């Protein structure tokens, strides 16, 4: 039985974009957390992490250095492979990557329903992934968007044309 994979190529690329987003996020979250600790240790201030106010600072740092970049890389791949329905398309790598992260965290016991931190474990990752994915996708297709805008606005007024 022959299966025509070309019919599913869009979905495959979306899934691969989501996979890139997830894998990058998995690596960058660890690297960013480690990097932040090294920076604070270098400035003789590792103890700052004990204060609840520092949680917001940590969230901002991880958002900027892990969640947005991982969405960006997922979006770059998806934007390189898919050129249609861009507004909807770039949502998928972010959602797939985020779902992967949530599943991994629940399976590894990092997160549980009893001690759920909605802001840190749901809102910030998904916000970062979605923003990053759109930025990555549109960075890859920016010229197409520009050309489409330009070509879309030029119309001939036939009444002005002399026979």
């Amino acid at each position: 039985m022959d299966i025509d994979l070309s019919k599913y190529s869009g979905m495959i690329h979306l899934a691969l974009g989501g996979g890139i987003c997830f894998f990058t996020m998995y690596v960058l979250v660890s690297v960013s957390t480690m990097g932040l600790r090294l920076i604070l240790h270098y400035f003789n201030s590792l103890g700052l992490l004990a204060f609840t106010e520092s949680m917001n600072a940590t969230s901002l740092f991880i958002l900027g250095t892990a969640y947005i970049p991982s969405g960006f890389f997922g979006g770059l791949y998806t934007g390189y492979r898919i050129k249609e329905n861009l507004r909807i398309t770039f949502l998928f790598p972010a959602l797939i990557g985020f779902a992967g992260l949530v599943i991994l965290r629940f399976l590894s016991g990092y997160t549980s329903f009893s001690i759920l931190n909605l802001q840190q474990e749901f809102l910030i990752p998904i916000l970062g992934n979605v923003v990053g994915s759109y930025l990555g996708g549109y960075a890859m297709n920016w010229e197409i968007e520009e050309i489409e805008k330009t070509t879309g606005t030029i119309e001939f007024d036939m009444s002005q044309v002399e026979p």
Partner: protein
Amino acid sequence: MRLPLAVFILAILVLSVASFAVFNSVFAAHVEGDHFKLETRYVDIDFPRNWYAFPWEDKNISGTKYGILLAPTELRASMFILVYDQDATKAYVEQNGILDAPSLVVFELERLFNWTLEKSENATLHFLKNGTVDVSGYTLTYSTVMMEKGYVDDQGKNYNWTWTFMSYVSDKILQITYHGVEEDYGKALNSFQVILNSTKVK
């Protein structure tokens, strides 16, 4: 440069700078010389700036336990401060047959040594010092012990392990414990004393 790429780079820079601005304000609010002042619901302490500190609260039907773990980054040593509220104290005392502070120290030491024996069969317990010490207006009973060959590292090598247990039992339990492997205990001892002197139990 394409606009989305520029926005991406700008977002990273802005978020990183904002993060460190928040850290800077937290630093300014809590720093006192070489120490940070940590004020919590049950305990206030000063601890060295480059120590790792982790406060937590464990609430369940038998009461609330409040704790802080403090650890230097370069030494195999750490300190725990635990405060039990009235309900948690009652549950702990009834469950473990504790009569007073010395019996609590012995109970915890026994529990620790039994746990150590599971890891290192050849460990031997030596009592080094017993007495009382005042912390934040409470008189705590303490024992310092050395578990010879009690600490086993990842390579299976044995080291001597020194522990100090302090406790106060009344309507609430206050437990303070610090420990260190080999000479790390001695190196961290001065900082442990500074933390103890600054501790204010509420």
